[in-house]
C-alpha cells in the first residue's frame, strides 16, 4: 500500500508505522477526553460532598475507570505509540505495531463499553492495553536495534520497553504502580528536545542512558500506599530515597546543557521545561511518600493522587514537546513553527491549579477514594475544580497550535528522522 494514498480504506488498513502513529495521535485524545470528562464528574462529586451529586459506589467506579483507561490507554502508550512509531519505526509493514494498534482499539472499546454498561471490565481492559503496549515496545525495540538508533529517546524506549516486558512477566497491572514507567520515555523526549535545542550534545551524555535505566529500574520499587502494608526496613527505605537521585541528576545534566549553550527557544522547549517543572513538583511529592514517617500519614490520601497526577502532567507535557519537536516527521511537512510557549505556560498553571490543592487536602487528611466525599475543603476544592476547567483552555490552545503547526503548510516529502541518528 502506498503511503501517498489518502483514502479512508488506506487509513483503516494502515500498515505503515507513521500512519499507525497518526491513528494513535487522533484516537488517544478522544480516549483522553472521555477519561477527562470522567475526572470532571469525580471532581464535581467532591465539590458537592455527602453524596449529593455522586454516590460513593459511582465515585469509586468512575475513579477506577478513569485510572485504568488514562494510565494504560493514554499515559503509558502516548509517547511510545504516538511518537515512537512515527520517529523510530519506519518499516512499511510493522506487524507488531499493527497488532499493538488493533489490541489498543479493542481495549479502548472494552473500556468505553464498560462505562456505558455501568460495569467496567477493568481487568480485561488492563490486560489488552498491556499486551498492546508490549507489541508496540517490541516493534520499537527491534527498530532501534535494526537501525542502530541512539540518543536519549531511543534509549528511553529500549529501557522502558524492557521494564514493561519484565512487568508483564511479573504480573500486576494496577494503574498506580505501573504509571511511573511512563516517566522514562517522557524524560527521554525531554532530554532529546533539550539536546537538539542546545547544540546537539547533552552535558554528561554518557551518563544519561544509565540514569534513564536507573529510573526504569526504580519503577519496580513499591511506593505510596503500597508501602503502608510493608514493614519498611532500612534497605527499602534507603532505596526509595535513592530513587530520587537519578531523575535529579538527569535534570542537572539538562540544566548544565542549557547553561553551556543557551537553547533556541520554541514551543517544544517550553513544553520540555513544563515537563521538568511538573517532574520536580512530583518528585517533591515522591520524597514525602517514600519517607516512612510521612508515608504513614500521606499514603492513600489525596496527596498520593496529586503526586500521580503531576506525574501524568510530566508525560503530557513531554508528549506535547515531542509532537512539536518532530512535527515534520509526524506530518511529513517541514513547516515553520506556528506555536508559541503560551500553551506550555497555561498548561503548567492549570495543572498546578487543578492538582496542587490535592497535596494540601491530602496533608489535611482527605482519603483517596470514596472516603473523599465525606468532607468538603471549600475553597481548595473550588480552586481544583476551576483548575480542571482551566486545563481545557490550556489544551485547547495547545491543540490549536499543534494543528496549525502540523497541517498549516504544503507537504514536504523529505521528512527528517531526527531521533534516528546513527550512533557515532
Amino acid at each position, binding site marked *: 500500500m502506498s503511503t501517498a494514498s489518502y483514502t479512508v480504506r488506506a487509513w483503516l488498513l494502515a500498515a505503515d508505522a507513521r500512519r499507525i502513529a497518526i491513528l494513535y495521535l487522533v484516537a488517544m485524545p478522544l480516549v483522553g477526553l472521555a477519561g477527562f470528562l470522567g475526572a470532571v464528574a469525580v471532581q464535581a462529586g467532591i465539590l458537592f460532598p455527602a453524596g449529593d451529586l455522586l454516590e*460513593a*459506589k459511582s465515585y*469509586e467506579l468512575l475513579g477506577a475507570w478513569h485510572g485504568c483507561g488514562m494510565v494504560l490507554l493514554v499515559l503509558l502508550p502516548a509517547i511510545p505509540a504516538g511518537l515512537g512509531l512515527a520517529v523510530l519505526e519506519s518499516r512499511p509493514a510493522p506487524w507488531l505495531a499493527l497488532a499493538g494498534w488493533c489490541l489498543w482499539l479493542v481495549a479502548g472499546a472494552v473500556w468505553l463499553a464498560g462505562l456505558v454498561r455501568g460495569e467496567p471490565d477493568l481487568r480485561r481492559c488492563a490486560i489488552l492495553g498491556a499486551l498492546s503496549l508490549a507489541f508496540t515496545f517490541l516493534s520499537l525495540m527491534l527498530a532501534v536495534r535494526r537501525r542502530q538508533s541512539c540518543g536519549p529517546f531511543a534509549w528511553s524506549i529500549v529501557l522502558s520497553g524492557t521494564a514493561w516486558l519484565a512487568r508483564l512477566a511479573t504480573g500486576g497491572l494496577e494503574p498506580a504502580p505501573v504509571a511511573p514507567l511512563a516517566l522514562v520515555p517522557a524524560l527521554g523526549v525531554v532530554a532529546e528536545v533539550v539536546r537538539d535545542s542546545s547544540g546537539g550534545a547533552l*552535558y*554528561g551524555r554518557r551518563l544519561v542512558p544509565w540514569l534513564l535505566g536507573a529510573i526504569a529500574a526504580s519503577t519496580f520499587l513499591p511506593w505510596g*500506599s503500597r508501602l*503502608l*502494608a510493608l514493614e*519498611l526496613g*532500612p534497605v527499602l*527505605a*534507603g532505596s526509595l*530515597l*535513592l530513587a*530520587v*537521585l537519578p531523575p*535529579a*541528576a538527569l*535534570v*542537572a*545534566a539538562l*540544566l*548544565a546543557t*542549557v*547553561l*553551556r*549553550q*543557551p537553547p533556541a527557544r520554541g514551543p517544544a522547549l517550553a513544553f520540555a*521545561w513544563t515537563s*521538568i*517543572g511538573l517532574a*520536580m*513538583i512530583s*518528585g*517533591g511529592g515522591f*520524597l*514525602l511518600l517514600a*519517607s*516512612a*514517617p*510521612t508515608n*504513614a*500519614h500521606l*499514603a*492513600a*490520601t489525596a496527596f498520593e493522587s496529586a503526586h500521580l497526577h503531576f506525574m501524568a502532567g510530566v508525560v503530557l507535557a513531554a508528549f506535547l514537546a515531542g509532537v512539536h519537536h518532530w512535527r515534520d516527521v509526524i506530518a511529513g511537512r517541514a513547516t515553520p513553527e506556528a506555536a508559541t510557549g503560551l500553551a506550555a505556560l497555561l498548561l503548567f498553571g492549570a495543572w498546578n491549579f487543578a492538582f496542587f490543592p490535592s497535596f494540601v487536602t491530602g*496533608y*489535611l*487528611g482527605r*482519603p483517596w*477514594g*470514596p*472516603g473523599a*466525599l*465525606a*468532607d468538603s475543603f471549600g475553597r481548595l476544592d473550588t480552586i481544583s475544580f476551576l483548575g480542571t476547567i482551566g486545563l481545557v483552555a490550556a489544551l485547547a490552545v495547545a491543540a490549536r497550535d499543534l494543528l496549525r503547526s502540523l497541517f498549516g503548510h504544503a507537504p514536504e516529502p523529505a521528512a527528517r528522522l531526527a531521533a534516528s541518528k546513527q550512533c557515532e
Partner: protein
Amino acid sequence: MTDTARVDTLALAMTLATAGFGLLALWALRRRRPLAPRRLRVMAVAWVVAAVLVLASFALGSYLVARGAPHAEPAIEIDVVARQWMWKVQHPEGRRELNELHLPLGYPVRLRMSSEDVPHALSIPALRVKKFMFVGRETALELKTQQKGQFVLYCAARCGPHNRAMRGTVVVMDLREYLQWARGEVPGESPLEAGRRLYLNLKCENCHRPDGAGRGPALAGLIGRTVTLREGTTLTADEDYVLESIREPDAKVVAGYEPVMPSFAGQLSESQLNALLQYLKTLEGGPR
C-alpha cells in the same frame, strides 16, 4: 512513636528542599549567556552533591522520626478491632467503645490492631498516623498525642462499598481524666452514683427484674438474705457472694434460674465492683 510536630518538620524540610532546587532550575533556564566550562562543571557536581547530601539528611531524619523519642513510661495498650464498617475499641481497664477512641494526652499509647473481615487501615490525620489492620495478624501503632481535642479517624483502605461510613472520633483528654474515663468513673461522682450508672449501663435490670420474673433473681434486698441454690443448699448472700457471682456467675446459681449470666471477670475494676455493690445495697424494690 509518632510525633506530629516532627513529621510536620520533616515534611516541611522536604518541601523547602524541592522548592530550593526548583528555584535553582529557574535561574538556569532564565540565563541567556553561556557559562564557562569550568564553572559549569563545578555547578553540575555541586547540584548532584547537594542532592546526595539532602537525601542523606532526609534518610537520617526519616529514621529518627520513625524511631521516635524514647519514653520512660510503659505504654498504655489499647485493643482496636476493625470490621465492615465500624471500629471496636477496648481499653486496659475493660472499658469498650464503638467508633470512638479515647486517648491520654502526652502519654505513650500502643494500639494493638487487627481486623475481623477484610484489610482495613486506621488513619488519624491529625496525629499523622496510619496503619493497616489484617485478619489473623496483629499490627501495632505507637503514638503520643500532643493536643487535647476531638479528631477524625477513618479507614484508609478500600474496604468495601460503605468505606466512607467507617469513620469515628478520637478524643484526647488529660491522663487523669482518661484513667477515670477508662475505669468508667466520672470526675466528682460519688461511689453510689457510679454504681447506679454502672447498674444502668450494664443493663443488669434486663435480667434481674425487680419482680423476680427475669432470667436472674431480683437484686433488691438481696444482700444479707438467705438464698437456696440449685443444688438444694442454702447460704447467706453476703458481699463476697455477690462479688463472686459477678465474676463467676455459674459458681453458685440460685434455685429456679439457669446459669446464663456472662462473666464480668476482668471487665470491671475493683472500684467499679465496690461502687456496684454500694448501689445494690440501697435497692429496695427496684433501681432509683
